[in-house]
Structures are given as C-alpha cells and as structure tokens.
C-alpha cells in the first residue's frame, strides 16, 4: 500500500485528429503503453450544425478521443506537458486532462504489481 499515491492515471480528452500526434510524442518519450476510447463530449465548444432533408439540427456532443496513460507519479508532469504541447490548437474544444489516483496496478500476464507492471 506504500505505492498507493505513486501511480496516476492521466486521462486526456483530445480532438480525434490529434491522436496520431499525441501517440507518437508519448511513444518518443518512452510512454508507449496507453488505452484509447472514443467518447463524445461538450464543454465550452458549441455543437456541430448538420443537415438532414433540408433541415438543420445540432449535434451538441462532439466526437472526442480519450487517451489514458497510467504512469508513476514522478512522470505525471512530463506526460501532461507532452500531451498539452501536441494536443493544443489554441481553439475552443482542445480538451481537458484529468489526473486520477491509482491504488494498485497489476499485469494480468505475470501478476507483477505497480512499477514493474507498467
């Protein structure tokens, strides 16, 4: 339980088209492992106006991509910085990063825990 506060899940909600860039930036810095989820979200960004049979309608949940990387606490700043640098366009809708505590990490294959599990 000593390592409890030492693992963090960095959840970054980004633009789908930024995924490739974020992925390679993280990989280049040694953070190859990650999990990616397609989500929809809204924040300060307005929805998208679409048309069907001559009428407009608003899709207010926009497609976003969530990249999740579990890292030791010491790497959090670097990961956050990497994501920020590559995922930012300066326009509304760039997304958010949430850092969440992870109590334990287990590698299913071997049963290794925490640091060794990453």
């Amino acid at each position: 339980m000593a390592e409890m506060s030492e693992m963090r899940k960095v959840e970054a909600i980004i633009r789908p088209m930024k995924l490739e860039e974020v992925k390679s930036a993280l990989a280049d810095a040694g953070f190859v492992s990650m999990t990616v989820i397609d989500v929809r979200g809204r924040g300060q960004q307005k929805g998208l106006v679409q048309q069907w049979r001559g009428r407009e309608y608003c899709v207010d949940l926009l497609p976003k991509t969530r990249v999740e990387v579990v890292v030791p606490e010491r790497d959090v700043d670097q990961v956050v910085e990497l994501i920020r640098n590559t995922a930012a366009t300066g326009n509304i809708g760039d997304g958010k990063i949430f850092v969440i505590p992870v109590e334990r990490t287990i590698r299913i294959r071997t049963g290794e825990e925490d640091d060794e599990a990453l």
Partner: protein
Amino acid sequence: MEKNKTYLLASILVMLVLLSLSPQVAAQEESIESLTESVDSLGTALTFVWLLLCGGLVFLMHAGFSLVEAGFTRAKNTANILMKNLMTVCIGVLIYWLVGWAIMYGDDVGGIFGFSQFCLSGADNAIWNAWFFQMVFAATGATIVSGAMAERTNFKAYLVFTGLLVAIIYPVYGHWVWSGTDLALLTGDGSWIVQMCGASFHDFAGSGVVHSIGGYAALAGVIVLGPRLGKFKNGKPQVIPGHNITFGFLGVLLLWLGWLGFNGGSTLDGSDAFMNLAVANTFLAAAAGAVAAMILTWVKTGKPDPSLTANGVLAGLVAITAPCGSVENWAAIVIGIIAGAIVYAGVMFNEAVLKVDDPVGAIAVHGYCGTWGLLAVGIFSVGMGNGILDGAVYAAGAPGLLYGGVNQFIVQVVGALAAIVWAFVVGLIVLS
C-alpha cells in the same frame, strides 16, 4: 391444221405450265399463311420476353424501396422495415393472384370493377404474362405505403392493410383506368365521365394508378398512425437522421433502373417503337428532377441536400410516368424540374403545415408528384397522331393546354381527383 397443231401444242404447253404453277401457287399460299402465323407468334413472343424482363426490372424496385426506406431511417428499425417490404411483395403476389387481378381485369361490373378470373382461373400463357407484369405494379403501389409508415407501424395491422390495398383499393381504381372495357369509369368510351369531359383519361404507366393511389393511401395511413415518438416537439418538426446513405442512394439508382421497365414496358407491346420515346423522356425527367431539387436545397439551405436530391430523382420519375409517351423531350424536362420543386415544397409543407411525419417523403414523391404527372398530361400532351406521335397507339388522345386542347386537361383533373379521394377516403375507412 398446222396452225391448229401449233395452237394445240401451245395450249398444252400452257396447260402444263399452269398445272405445274397452280399447286405451286397454292403451296405458296400455305407457306405464306404459316409464315404470317410465325411472324405473328414471333411478335407475341417478343412481347412476352419484353414484358417478363420489364416486370423483372419493376420487381427490382422492391429492392430499391427497401434500401431507400432502410437507409433513410434509424438503424434500430431496419429489420422491421425490411420485413415489411419483403412481406409487401409476398402478399402482393398472392393476393393479386387470388383477388386483385379479378377485380381489375375480370368481367366488368358497371365500369366500376371487374369480377371473374379469381385465382387466374382459366389462364393461359398470355394471361400469365399479363398478370405478372400487372402484379409487380400492384405490389409497387402497396410498398409505397410502407415507406411513409416506417418506424412505427404495427406489423400485423400493416399486413392486413397491404392485403386490402392489393385486393381492392388498387385494382378498383386500376379498373377505371386500365381495364379497357367500354364502361371503364375514366377511360371507356361509354363512361359518362369520358363523355362529359370529351376526352379519355390517360395514365400511361401509373402516375395515378400506382403512385397517387399509393401516396394518398400512405397519407391516410400516416394521419391515422400519428408521427414517430419525438418527431414533433411542441409542434416543431425535429430531425431524425437516416443511418445509411449508401443504401439510400443505391436504392434510388435501382428504382431509376426499375422505371425503365415500368414506363418502357407499359405500351404492353414489344413491337411498339414508342417505348423508346417513353424511356428517353423518363430518363430526362428523372435527371431534371434531381438537378432541380439539388439546386433548390442548395439555394435554400446553403448546401445541396443528398436525401432530398435523391427524392428529386424519384419525383421526376413519378411525374413522367403518366405523360412519358405523350410529350416531347423538352416537356419531359420541364415536368421533371417542376416535380423536383414539388417534392421539396411538399416535404416541407407536410412537416411544417400538415404536421404529418413521412420519414422518406413518400407522400410528396408519390402522392403530390403523381398528381402533377396526371395534370402534366393535360398540359403538355401532343395529342395522339400529331407531330412526334405520328403512328403512336397508346398516348393521350387529345392535345394538352399548350397545344390548344382543353378536354384532355379537364379529364386529367377529374381522374387525379378521383385517385386522391378514392385512395385517401377508403384508406381512412379501412384503417380506422
């Protein structure tokens, strides 16, 4: 004597020649007769082949309708829609065999309906051929309704309604127009309507019989049924996008192809060259309808709308169905353009004013443009035997408004109204 001998010889000669000639001429008589028969039956065979293949193309329209309806609605209703469309064909085949044909083409009862040949009793190959071609039309009329009622109809109720449509609603109006009997309400020489109007109603391939009937029956159905959950919020129409535009567009192209059989085959004669005019006009009107609808939505909404453009194709096709064998090429284009406008206006009108929910625009396409097609005959018809229609045998009899005639227009109005009233009213009664 010499001379006489000469005569004798000459005469004998002549007689010999004659004797050899006479049976030859008789034999030729026979071969000519048998040839004439062969040629006639070859003509019939050509018609059989042509109508079977055209019927096949019309049958393909069911695939087209299925795809348009499935593609332009939500994924969760796809299985239901497909089942409904497949069952429409199946019921169409069986019921039109059982009852529909008898009511439409059986022995005439007062010009109102037919009543004989149930179950095609006594049929021969000519009847099977005709039945097949007519049956695919009947099933098409029925399937129109499924589009308008998509995404909310009770399956069992739908099946019953389809059965009644193919058994009664469709064939009765069909009898008025296509039965060919002297008293046939809208087209027979002995009918009071024809005599009153001074011209016979003309609906080449069914802007009225198939499309108006289907379209206004659909209107009745949609009104009885009410809109889909969530279609209107505080009276304001909401958007419910379709789920697969590729299916929708494939469907439209299959429908277009199907119309080659629908209109091309409707001279019912493989040797009638005017099938070519009909087909050329059909394709021109379809293209014009699409372009018109595209430009309209482009101007109105800032971008060309795919599903309304697709409706524009169908609008042009439905509208040209009645006049395609009676008008010039330019008129076909004009008819198509106006149809494209009608379908756009009609869809908006249905949603915003009538507050009816018609997911694929079936009422505007088949109902409104069907009516427009019938009226267009009265406006643009060249008149059988005139100009390009020299030699035509199946076209509107009298010239339209633009060619100085009035009677044809009047009778078209009467026939168009008859279709609306008959399909809508009987549809309402049956459904409630």
